[in-house]
């Protein structure tokens, strides 16, 4: 990062901070204070402490209870969170955050720089697999005063600034967790954070009740008095709850895709697919690159040509998403659109198979592949069926194999599969959510969501390594663009869809989706009426 870029970043940070504070005041004017939000949580989370558990429902509710230093806009640019401003040193190794004054935990104790350092360097490196990769890069963490946090990294790591959302780096109270077993700490049941809402009651199997944190540091927030998260396991019942107005908000997969067109027509509801930009869920057909014929890139290219992505998007996901062009989502930073693409063409697919010598035998069959259907619901089964029919047209017989979550996870992570489908999050930066699926160093048997396909290309590895530590966006873009071009030529997996998820909410609700993490955000600015 040169001096000019650094100055630009500084001023952007400062302006963002100032704007947000002013914004908060403006938003408060004319907004109704009070009211109850009823919404859905499914499945019921195991705990609410996001430092200990990072399942989606935990993050949805935990996001109201725990905060981090920053928030990220829909465009994934950092915004003030617990930190009102921040700077990055020109060498890209030192990050300085200034906290807002008067931040308190739900138990009334102040939240200071020591709590932030303790959370990032002691708790998260122990309990949070995703955060561990980032925060183990910290060489030194200091608190020159109670409102200043200084992290010095061992070497530059550009995505560091993208790692302070409340799902990645929640701040826990040091006075509660220090010198304890973080996972077994009795305080986990109380979920003590700094967020605008605190836990009042959890009736397991029924609901989780959050109420206003009166000592919240952002003036005028939260607007709502309370939030009820209702546990409704059946999808049809969830739709009924939304239609009847029993709940005013649904998110993620609360509503089945096939119900989206119908519910979108209801006059009292608003629907948006915004708020998933940070996660950027990326759907692909996963192929075990170690096993023939998937070990031949011509076969993988043939599969890419044989799958009609638009049809998948329209028929299975009811238009919710955008056809993927490569490993990086267009929502994620450093996306490259100028890559080799694979149009829907059965002729091209057949030619590729002929070229590799996979000729059609009796009955036109060239090969038989087993497709492990991910056990996550109806749409995955439909996707499996679609793949079976589509590949059948080019002579690839696909045998669908079902199972449960545990069985699927075991087979896929131990590489005992030929073909399956997968949906992974990108977490705002390729270094955080993309590299892991293609880097040779991340081929790790028995661990889900690593480079399970077994793709290995030293050129791609080098580009990913360099991009992670490059300190300018231009350089990073250049390196990631090259990596994407190689990957799109090699197609280790067939990227299908940048999947969208529908958020339905009552039109009376305001400011529901304001950042790139959408419904995981604090909801301090959400109001009714």
């Amino acid at each position, binding site marked *: 990062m040169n001096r000019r870029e650094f100055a630009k970043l500084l001023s952007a940070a400062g302006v963002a901070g100032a704007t947000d504070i002013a914004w908060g005041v403006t938003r408060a004017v004319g907004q109704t204070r009070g009211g109850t939000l009823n919404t859905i949580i499914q499945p019921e989370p195991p705990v609410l402490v996001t430092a200990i558990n990072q399942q989606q429902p935990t993050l949805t509710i935990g996001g109201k209870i725990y905060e981090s230093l920053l928030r990220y806009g829909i465009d994934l640019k950092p915004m003030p969170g617990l930190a009102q401003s921040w700077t990055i040193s020109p060498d890209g190794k030192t990050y300085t955050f200034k906290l807002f004054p008067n931040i308190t935990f739900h138990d009334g104790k102040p939240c200071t720089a020591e709590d932030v350092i303790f959370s990032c360097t002691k708790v998260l490196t122990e309990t949070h697999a995703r955060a*561990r990769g980032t925060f183990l890069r910290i060489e030194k963490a200091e608190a020159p005063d109670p409102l200043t946090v200084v992290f010095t990294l061992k070497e530059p790591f550009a995505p560091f600034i993208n790692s302070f959302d409340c799902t990645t780096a929640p701040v826990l109270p040091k006075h509660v967790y220090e010198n304890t077993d973080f996972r*077994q700490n009795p305080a986990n049941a109380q979920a003590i954070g700094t967020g605008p809402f605190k836990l009042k009651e959890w009736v397991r199997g029924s609901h989780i009740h959050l109420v206003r944190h009166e000592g919240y540091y952002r003036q005028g927030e939260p607007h709502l008095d309370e939030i009820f998260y209702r546990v409704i396991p059946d999808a049809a019942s969830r739709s009924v709850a939304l239609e009847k107005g*029993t709940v005013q908000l649904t998110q993620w997969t609360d509503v089945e895709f096939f119900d989206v067109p119908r519910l979108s027509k209801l006059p009292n509801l608003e629907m948006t697919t915004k708020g998933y930009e940070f996660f950027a869920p990326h759907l692909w057909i996963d192929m075990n690159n170690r096993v023939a014929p998937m070990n031949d890139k011509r076969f993988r290219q043939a599969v890419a040509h044989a799958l009609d992505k638009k049809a998948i998007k329209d028929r299975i996901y009811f238009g919710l998403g955008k056809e993927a062009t490569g490993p990086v989502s267009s929502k994620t930073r450093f996306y490259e659109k100028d890559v080799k693409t694979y149009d829907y063409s059965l002729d091209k697919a057949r030619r590729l198979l002929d070229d590799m010598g996979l000729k059609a035998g009796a009955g036109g069959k060239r090969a038989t592949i087993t497709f492990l259907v991910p056990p996550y619901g109806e749409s995955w089964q439909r996707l499996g069926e679609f793949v079976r029919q589509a590949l059948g047209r080019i002579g690839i017989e696909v045998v669908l194999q079902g199972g*449960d979550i545990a069985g699927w996870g075991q087979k896929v992570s131990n590489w005992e599969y030929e073909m399956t489908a997968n949906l992974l999050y990108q977490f705002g930066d390729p270094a955080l959510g993309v590299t892991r699926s293609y880097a040779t160093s991340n081929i790790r048997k028995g661990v889900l969501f690593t480079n399970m396909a077994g793709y290995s290309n030293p050129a791609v590895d080098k580009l990913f390594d360099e991009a992670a530590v490059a300190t300018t966006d231009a350089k990073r873009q250049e390196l990631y663009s090259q990596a994407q071009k190689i990957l799109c030529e090699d197609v280790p997996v067939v990227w299908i869809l940048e999947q969208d998820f529908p958020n339905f909410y009552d039109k009376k609700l305001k400011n529901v989706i304001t950042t790139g993490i959408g419904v995981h955000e604090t909801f301090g600015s959400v109001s009714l009426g």
Partner: protein
Amino acid sequence: MTHLASGLQGHRVVAVALGILGWAAKFVAVVLVISTMSFLLVRAAPGDPAQVMAGQTGAADEKMLAQIRQEYGLDQPFILQLATHLKRVVTLDLGQSYRQRQPVTTLIGERLPATLLLTGTAFLLALASGILLGTLAALRAGRWSDTLLTVVSLILYAMPVFWLGLMMVLVFSVQLGLVPAFGFQTIGVEMGPFGRALDIGHHLILPAISLAAVYLAIYTRLMRSSVIEVAQQDYIKTARAKGLAQGRIIARHILRNAILPVVTVAGMQAGALVGGAVVVETVFAWPGLGRLTYEAVLQRDYPVLLGLFLVMSVIVILLNLATDVLYRFIDPRVTTQAAG
């Protein structure tokens, strides 16, 4: 005489005590066998709870997997894990849920009342209605009302529980707005104990009817054929020849005998009600054991699953005992034969 009477009484007390001890020994043996079998069955399924838990976070590494396995003893030898499980059964310490990090006894204790309320209500509803409707159908055998009851029973029997539940929600909740669509109680409203009881009762209507429907059909059909069969017995003809009133014959002679097969089947099926509750509790968001079971299966939450199997098997064993006792109460011949 006094000595003889007290001797006989003492002998009887000893016999009863021995009987209870024998039953208790059988109870413990059955529970231990079931616990061992459950453990083996659960572990026979492919899959690793650590993988499930790590997988759902969207990111995992070896350290996380190792931590989970170590924390829950999944890295221990299989035999040691089985021994730990059996020790827990004996000491009634069912361990801690992998997923929810709560004692299994707490989780089950929280959900048990809701399931007992739902299954108990459904059971009584199905049994009472089945006996009543079956008797009515038998007494009007061959007439249109019998045909109607038969057809309705068959429809209820053939209808999937989840579909019936959803249809009832659509009609009685969404369209007519008569009853709540789901849930155990109204959330976020303060009520007195009486108001709360009424509110829970209101929420109970649809799930209880959905769960009861299929059993109601079975009991109706069973009661109908049983009443018809008993009504043709010689002693009924004798009663009629003696000029006993029809109502007395039905109440004292036909029903009392005809009900025995229904009680037998009901006792056997009471355990199956908990299985049916899995679906009903899911459709109606009823916070009971059924849903806990479903979630534990999905999550491979072994301690919860094994704890649930244990509790359910104990319930089934106790229900069978209750059926035996009830049988003796309804039909004194059973006691006499046993004594003889």
